[in-house]
């Protein structure tokens, strides 16, 4: 009886050991470095007459732990304000991705939040010497999912709200004349960013 119990215990411990040693994918653990490109659509700009913006950028991704990843990105975004002004935004920042659950089918959902620095440039279309610019900082957060194409290649779709903190820049129209105003003091403005990115896992850094 004792021999049988010992045998069962040994067998169970062996099974537990094997399960515990189930090797996780090499490309789903800490130290994985990815490179990617991204396209962004920016909605709900703070100025009522502004159109949706389109953007292009690059990024790299560095995974800190099995469930924690990070995005480091640069975006170049363009939009219109009426027919008289064009606006360009440059974003540079980082975000942390948290995976609350394991991969389901090809999808790996995540919660994302981070910081960003941005530069905004507005210019009158017919008179490029009439322009305004400002630097500001921003925080962004949202949700997204990786869509696994292969073990090393994925497509990611993210929706996040970015809130800028800094001087408020807005145009005013006086007949055919365009005047830019920069109001000092903190003002929050934001936009919804929908980003589609393609990422390739280059290798493990540690």
């Amino acid at each position: 009886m004792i021999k049988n119990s010992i045998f069962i215990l040994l067998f169970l411990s062996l099974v537990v050991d094997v399960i515990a040693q189930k090797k996780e994918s090499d490309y789903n653990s800490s130290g994985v470095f990815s490179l990617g490109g991204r396209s962004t659509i920016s909605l709900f700009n703070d100025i009522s007459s502004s159109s949706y913006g389109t953007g292009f950028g690059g990024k790299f991704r560095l995974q800190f732990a099995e469930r924690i990843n990070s995005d480091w990105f640069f975006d170049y975004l363009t939009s219109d304000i009426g027919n008289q002004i064009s606006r360009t935004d440059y974003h540079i920042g980082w975000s942390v991705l948290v995976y609350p659950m394991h991969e389901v089918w090809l999808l790996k959902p995540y919660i994302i939040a981070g910081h960003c620095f941005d530069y905004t440039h507005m210019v009158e279309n017919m008179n490029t010497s009439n322009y305004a610019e400002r630097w500001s900082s921003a925080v962004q957060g949202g949700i997204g999912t990786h869509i696994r194409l292969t073990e090393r290649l994925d497509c990611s779709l993210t929706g996040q709200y970015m809130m800028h903190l800094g001087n408020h820049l807005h145009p005013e129209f006086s007949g055919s004349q365009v005047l830019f105003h920069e109001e000092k003091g903190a003002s929050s403005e934001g936009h919804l960013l929908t980003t589609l990115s393609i990422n390739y896992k280059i290798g493990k850094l540690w």
Partner: protein
Amino acid sequence: MVNYSALFFIIFPFFNFAQELPGYEPNWGRRDRQTETPQFFTPRLLKASATISPGIMLNNHASSINLSGFLEYIIEDAYSLRGDVFQFIDANYTTKSLIEPIFQNRLFFGAFKHFGKNNLKLYSGLQMGTTITTYNQSWFAGNRTYVSPSFAIKSGISYYVWKYFNFFADFTYVNSILRGTSFGSHRMDELIFSAGLGFQVPLKKKRSESI
């Protein structure tokens, strides 16, 4: 002596013709032949090509001519990473054309999936990138250069005829918006056709190379 020489020149060519060329398959076309088709599309294949690509400017009502090129790397059995460049050469404009680019360059990078077995492959992919356009804003404002964020969707077919060559044909839809013109923004979407001879180099050698 002359007779011997004549005999030599008559018989010698038969020895030459009797030699099989490397890669020549004597049973080619026979139904009962038992040969395996060599696969030229493999992972770790580096592809490149350059060609002349006609296009249609969908919103600018013009037909364009571009010089295009690509570099592609097959990362796994069915997926590749690919970069494309389209250099605008000239266009035939109509009375509805609002923008006449002086210079236009489109640069894209993205991922592709390849479908099909053997050496005939269909492929499709999504790319993101930029379009740099220089155009004449107005007689007093002069030329203006603008960088538009863009994306492209490409679908096509390629046939790998040999270890180093393939034939390809594809269509690319390009989405881009030129902002800041004298009348606001203007879509510069384009449908571009590319076809020609492509080159590839297998970066990983097969263990048993017979071709």
